[in-house]
């Protein structure tokens, strides 16, 4: 099924937040901190305000006294508080922190006025990386803290130390994972309109979680939730970054209230590099132990997460997830992890497709390759030996319980699809010619269908894992589905329409899906994130649609004088099994339900509407294999793909086209992480990356053609059998690319433990390689 939203997007008719125009609308820009750490002594806006067409300048000193801080929705046990406000009140902790909002007749004018703001700063010592932040005598970001550690998480199963002591082989490595960000092509943005007569705020914002935005604005501004309406226009990609609630959303609302005019702010690309949450950056010291026959007996990991200047919306959730995913898909009985969330003078870190999973996958899969290397074993065999077996599910590892998986058979299929033996032969032939070809094949699992609510709450999440589906049939038999989830370009509304249509017996074209309006749509437990739209959202809609179908069938049965059990429905028609000519349409049912209740069964209430909640009993875990074949030019350091295969299983597939698109996009982002993207900072916290000239998003020329193959093992914990697929591609690809590069450079004894694999790094590795592992 082709996507219903395409024609609008293809014709340039879609309206994103930058396209929202309101009568009398003003334009806002932000003055941001140029320093990693400083006190704001004063902000003088007089010259800016004197400029014709400038309507307001608000800085921290102008914020209402009772304004609440920007909330965090993940409140893990023992984490310290890092309060920050819409605009910095008296101290900034990263370059890019919003300091003032300037509102003028045009964006051009607002930028002119911004240049006239006079800020007196008092610079403070700063820290630009976790090591500096943990050093003795390091400058502290928060007064009253003994150090710069915002939180510590520890978990252990079995006895890792004993297992390591007894092991035949132990691999130790220090991994460095770079700072990235989601970098949706459409930046963030918000338009606020304040209706003083009603006392209501309307906010159009490019977000993944409209209800979170509404609730938080309500807490911050002390406005009741029902007096805030959050509308989500078309969203030009989110990838997690737009799951977060941002200071700018509050500041734009304040500016609209202060000026009495609608105010639009559209993030520009330069501010996106310092204003949108960062992600991924960790240093991980990890150990893996195994027996001589390749059984992995233990894994330990000491993780340092570079949180940036504050715990932002999801706190250190991604770091926590990295820690608890350190056993990946393997039945490792002894594991110990410790994660420390460290604050630094950099942009706060948070969500990006995969959360902490790409890091954990990189670490574990690199260690497994290390075990294979030390044993002289085939990395495919080592993986096969250590998988959790199908009969062991549900399987609980370090923290999570996994629903199901047929890992070994999928791996075998991947070896076949890649034609690994043929590539090994080609690799050998290339080596004979002095060319360096490498093959990397790694296994991933993805945390999807986030829930259940009680478990999330117990873990400290101030949100549920449920979703509410609201389905209504109209008088004409057409169906409207209301969902609190958001369309970000992933196309989930198509799947939702299909699920509702299948459940109701109507054609998908008869289903309209309404999202992105907090006044119309039901609350979502968590928002659009954690690959939960198709699975949890889909399940709640399916439940509601089935409930509605039961009522529609009862009405139809009454009209046809047939038992409900004898009815069949498809494409909006309901007939008696065996006599297709005895039928009514959904429009007949709708008319009866709303306009002619006289036709309803005795005692039945009019109307055709159902609301159902789905709260997953546990999460669903899709999995798969990424296999990369690369050639490395050891003179220039360039890495080029020769082949790329992804074989995966995400349970029941609703729309294969959309699933494949999700994988393609995720893998491209994973390749960006592996080879190109990095937000670099100096030791003091000054950003060194700030444009698309230095933050390198891969182009069509860098991303290879990806060959996909699917298995379909329905999830036992999701009624539709559907597992999520949103993040899979981004999770498993960096480890595969790293493995392939290391394999290509095997003659030089190179170990790939840091990303991105830049040409410069490749040349350094080749130059410094031990050469002691020449194949």
């Amino acid at each position: 099924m082709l996507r219903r939203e395409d024609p609008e997007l293809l014709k340039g008719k879609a309206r994103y937040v930058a396209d929202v125009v309101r009568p009398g609308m003003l334009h806002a820009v932000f003055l941001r901190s140029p320093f990693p750490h400083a006190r704001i002594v004063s902000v003088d806006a007089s010259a800016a305000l004197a400029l014709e067409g400038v309507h307001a300048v608000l800085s921290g000193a102008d914020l209402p006294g009772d304004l609440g801080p920007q909330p965090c929705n993940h409140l893990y046990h023992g984490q310290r508080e890092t309060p920050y406000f819409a605009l910095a009140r008296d101290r900034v902790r990263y370059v890019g922190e919003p300091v003032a909002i300037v509102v003028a007749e045009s964006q051009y004018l607002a930028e002119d006025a911004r240049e006239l703001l006079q800020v007196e700063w008092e610079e403070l010592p700063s820290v630009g990386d976790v090591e500096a932040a943990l050093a003795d005598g390091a400058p502290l970001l928060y007064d009253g803290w003994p150090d710069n550690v915002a939180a510590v998480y520890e978990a252990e199963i079995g006895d890792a130390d004993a297992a390591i002591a007894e092991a035949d082989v132990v691999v130790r490595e220090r991994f460095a994972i770079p700072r990235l960000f989601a970098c949706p092509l459409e930046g963030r943005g918000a338009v606020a309109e304040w209706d003083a007569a009603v006392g209501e705020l309307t906010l159009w914002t490019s977000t993944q979680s409209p209800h979170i935005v509404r609730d938080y604005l309500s807490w911050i501004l002390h406005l009741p939730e029902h007096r805030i309406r959050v509308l989500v226009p078309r969203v030009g990609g989110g990838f997690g970054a737009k799951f977060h609630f941002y200071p700018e959303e509050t500041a734009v609302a304040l500016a609209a209230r202060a000026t009495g005019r609608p105010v639009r702010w559209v993030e520009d690309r330069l501010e996106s590099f310092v204003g949108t949450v960062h992600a991924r950056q960790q240093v991980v010291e990890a150990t893996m132990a195994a027996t001589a026959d390749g059984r992995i007996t233990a894994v330990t990991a000491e993780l340092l997460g570079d949180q940036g200047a504050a715990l932002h919306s999801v706190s250190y959730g991604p770091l926590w997830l990295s820690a608890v995913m350190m056993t990946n898909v393997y039945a490792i009985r002894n594991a110990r992890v410790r994660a420390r969330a460290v604050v630094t003078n950099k942009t706060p870190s948070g969500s990006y497709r995969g959360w902490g999973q790409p890091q954990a996958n990189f670490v574990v899969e690199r260690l497994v390759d290390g075990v294979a290397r030390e044993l002289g074993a085939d990395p495919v065999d080592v993986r096969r030996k250590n998988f959790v077996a199908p009969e062991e599910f549900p399987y609980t590892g370090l923290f999570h319980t996994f629903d199901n998986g047929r890992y070994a058979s999928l791996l075998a299929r991947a070896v076949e699809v890649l034609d690994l033996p043929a590539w090994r032969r080609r690799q050998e032939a290339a080596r004979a010619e002095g060319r360096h070809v490498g093959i990397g094949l790694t296994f991933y699992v993805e945390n999807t269908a986030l829930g259940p609510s009680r478990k999330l709450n117990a873990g400290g999440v101030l949100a549920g894992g449920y979703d509410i589906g609201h389905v209504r049939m109209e008088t004409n038999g057409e169906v409207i589905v209301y969902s609190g989830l958001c369309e970000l370009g992933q196309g989930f509304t198509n799947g939702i329409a299909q699920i509702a249509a299948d459940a109701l017996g109507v054609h998908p074209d008869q289903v309209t899906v309404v999202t992105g309006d907090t006044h119309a749509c039901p609350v979502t437990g968590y928002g659009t994130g954690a690959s939960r739209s198709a699975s949890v959202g889909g399940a709640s809609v399916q439940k509601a649609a089935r409930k509605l179908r039961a009522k529609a069938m009862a009405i139809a049965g009454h009209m046809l004088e047939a038992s409900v059990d004898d009815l069949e429905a498809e494409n909006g028609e309901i007939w008696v099994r065996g006599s297709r000519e005895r039928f009514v349409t959904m429009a007949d049912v709708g008319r009866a339900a709303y306009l002619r209740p006289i036709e309803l069964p005795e005692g039945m209430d009019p109307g055709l509407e159902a609301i159902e909640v789905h709260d997953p009993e546990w999460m669903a875990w899709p999995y798969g294999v990424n296999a990369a074949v690369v050639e490395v030019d050891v003179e220039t350091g360039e890495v080029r793909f020769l082949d790329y295969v992804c074989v995966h299983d995400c349970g029941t597939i609703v729309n294969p086209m959309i699933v494949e698109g999700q994988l393609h996009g995720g893998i491209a982002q994973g390749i960006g992480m592996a080879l190109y993207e990095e937000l670099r900072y100096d030791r003091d916290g000054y950003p060194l990356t700030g444009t698309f000239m230095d933050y390198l998003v891969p182009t069509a020329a860098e991303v290879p053609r990806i060959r996909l193959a699917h298995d379909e093992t329905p999830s036992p914990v999701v009624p539709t059998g559907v597992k999520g697929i949103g993040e899979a591609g981004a999770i498993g690809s960096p480890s595969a690319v790293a493995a392939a590069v290391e394999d290509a450079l095997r003659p030089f004894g190179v170990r790939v433990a840091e990303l991105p694999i830049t040409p410069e790094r490749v040349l350094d590795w080749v130059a410094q390689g031990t050469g002691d592992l020449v194949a």
Partner: protein
Amino acid sequence: MIRVRTTVNGRVREAEVEPRRLLADFLREDLGLRGTHLGCEHGICGACTILVDGEPARSCLMLAVQADGRALTTVEGLAPGDGELHPIQQAFHERHGLQCGFCTPGFLLTTHYLLARGEDLGSDEELRAALAGNLCRCTGYQNIVEAVRDAAARLSQGGLR
């Protein structure tokens, strides 16, 4: 203020603009043609790509005054009618060559230029290089490449509008 007279999608459009007004803002804010998107405003992402006298150009790197006397094509000028799609748009639709749609107008116009030249698209490597001036964060490009090839096949039969 300077008077600018351009032909946009076949229609003459005139307006008074500040010299510093970017062509993209002129199209979006002054003419209401919001299908041209701004993704970086420094010429890398290609979302704002339009055709200027038939050749692709970044509308974020042109001043509106530089468009005086020129013929511009934006995404709104591609489809032949309200209910129809241009064959390039149809190919992107059927091949799932778009997800969030933000980069799509730029890709469509780049594709239009590539196909209007009537040259062979060459190998995948060559075609991907020709598309490298447009960033997409959603699709991983694979279906875009397929859509461009599909569009070429459609147009070799029907001719480019």
